[in-house]
């Protein structure tokens, strides 16, 4: 077996051989799964993107909503309570949140209809469900992992959003809008929000590595068959080709995500033009 995998050759030679095939797109053969690495990873990528995408939405939707509420009611009791809550979320480890969610969701007090699945991506009879059934099933499986992965980053986004909104509300054009007699709702959502969102968009790139890192932990807890799970099992099994390719792919995803975030920047802020 050592011979078959070329493990008896000198290390530099192995490294050069590995590098050569790696850059040509051949990621090698997984020791622990006895399958090509490319195959293993291409099955896992979509699952991680499902989870990551859903979490990203939760992170920014919840984060922005909380930040807006806080900035509109600055220094009120609500503001202080939410500041404390976001700090709490920010300090909660993802894995503990996940474990607590499993404990909470699997307690026997819930009726069957409300019972949320705590492991895997689909129920056993998934293949026999119709399109809507499949979507609903997938959504039910997504709920808990998404919350576990997204909630603590949402706390961080809320803190940024509060700061950004408060800075925007101080601007002259907000005073102009108020002086025109616009309703507070129009001022906040029409004028302040759009401008306050601009710096928030750049956070997408910042939070991608955090989300993907968290995916390793969350996928392990919820038995979600994504890249984090592959990575965890590969490290446990010391399956080096798989570990290297997995790490590389995570980096590639982060870079692509950053590119998308930069392009989004131009969409949100028309003053920015890329040539």
């Amino acid at each position, binding site marked *: 077996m050592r011979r078959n995998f070329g493990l008896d050759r000198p290390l530099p030679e192995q490294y050069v051989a590995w590098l050569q095939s790696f850059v040509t797109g051949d990621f090698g053969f997984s020791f622990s799964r006895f399958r090509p690495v490319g195959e293993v990873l291409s099955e896992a990528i979509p699952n991680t993107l499902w989870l990551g995408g859903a979490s990203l939405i939760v992170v920014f939707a919840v984060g922005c909503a909380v930040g807006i509420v806080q900035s509109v009611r600055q220094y009120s009791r609500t503001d202080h309570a939410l500041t404390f809550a976001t700090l709490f979320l920010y300090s909660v480890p993802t894995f*503990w949140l996940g474990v607590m969610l499993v404990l909470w969701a699997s307690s026997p007090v819930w009726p069957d209809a409300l019972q949320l699945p705590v492991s895997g991506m689909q129920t056993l009879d998934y293949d026999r469900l119709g399109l809507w059934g499949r979507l609903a099933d997938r959504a039910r499986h997504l709920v808990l992992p998404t919350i576990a992965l997204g909630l603590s980053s949402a706390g961080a986004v809320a803190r940024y959003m509060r700061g950004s909104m408060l800075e925007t509300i101080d601007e002259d054009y907000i005073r102009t809008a108020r002086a025109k007699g616009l309703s507070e709702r129009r001022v906040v959502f029409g004028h302040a929000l759009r401008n306050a969102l601009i710096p928030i968009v750049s956070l997408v790139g910042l939070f991608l590595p955090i989300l993907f890192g968290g995916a390793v932990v969350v996928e392990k807890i919820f038995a979600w068959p994504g890249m984090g799970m592959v990575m965890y099992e590969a490290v446990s099994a010391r399956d080096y080709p798989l570990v290297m390719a997995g*790490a590389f792919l995570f980096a590639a995803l982060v870079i692509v995500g950053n590119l998308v975030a930069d392009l989004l920047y131009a969409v949100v802020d028309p003053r920015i033009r890329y040539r």
Partner: protein
Amino acid sequence: MGRLLDLVLPGARDLRKRPVRAAAALAAWAALWVLVVVRWDRIVATPGGGAVDAWIALVSLLAALAAVWRLGGRRPEPDVSVEMRSQWGLVSDAFRRHRLAMAGLALVATLAFLALLTPYLAPHDPAAQGADIVATRFQPPSWEHPMGTDRFGRDVLSRVLYGGRVSLMVGTLAIIIAMTLGSLVGAVAGYARGWIDAVSMRTVDLLLSLPRLVLLITIIAFVDPSTTLIIVVLGLTGWMGTSRLVRGEVLSLREREFVQAARVLGFGTPRILFKHVLPNVATPIIVAATLGIGNTILVEASLSFLGFGVPPPTPSWGDMVLRGVRDMHDAPWLVLFPGIAIVVTVMSFNLVGDGLRDALDPRAGGGGHS
């Protein structure tokens, strides 16, 4: 009379004027004396026993008593006008007005003493299994075991306490490595500019594009984990943000008059960097370090939870949650208490970090963190 009261009950005289501070001092004073009385046998055994941990605990206990006595008995300083205050005096004033930050600082101090005093505090040996394993395992919280017992009949409270020592030590040492490395790289890159700057900043970009946890487990896949290794690896993966921060500051500082003056005087580059430039970047580094300790403790716990952290005989919070998951439906205290310990620790460091940042920069009124 008042002086005598101060001697026995520090802070008691202030109870009406500054109730929170006086009550905190009195509570800490009382707690320490209760500890002395309850654990008298362990304390007197220390000088003969000779274990390093116990010696550290003894010294810390005396230091804690002295610190509380001094803090509680101190009179408020007379008000000085703003012009007469030093930069640090102003900062410390701003920090003291920040109530949450002060609460965080008190918590951090408490946690540090808890960690140092663990050999006296822990009710049981963290590794001791019950005599009759069937009877002593999975006991719910009780007077004997305030946080219950685990699958082997070990006391969870003692393990949480000993785990806290590991977490705080790993977090602090790793952040020292990270901050030193980050400041050095950032300062050199920002001061030298040119290709040195380009190479080091592209390296930073490269390392930042890998999720930290993925980077960590990739490294750990190739080596056998030990506590030292975890500290070094956490330090080596945590310096990038700081080096960017420092580089930015140094880029603008190097054009300032006092740096130019130092150059004209013919000082060598190392002397300019360490004596003139870096001291002016100290404040953002301190803020980054405080927030970084909390984050490092989180990451270390996640690593341990994955099973790649501090290796097992050493108790660690992440590892306790990992082992507890199997039995958590029957014994939820196994995952509950270590998790709460992590949250409280990380949160108190974040509170202090936030407070410091606000105190150092009045402009950033509680907004995002950079």
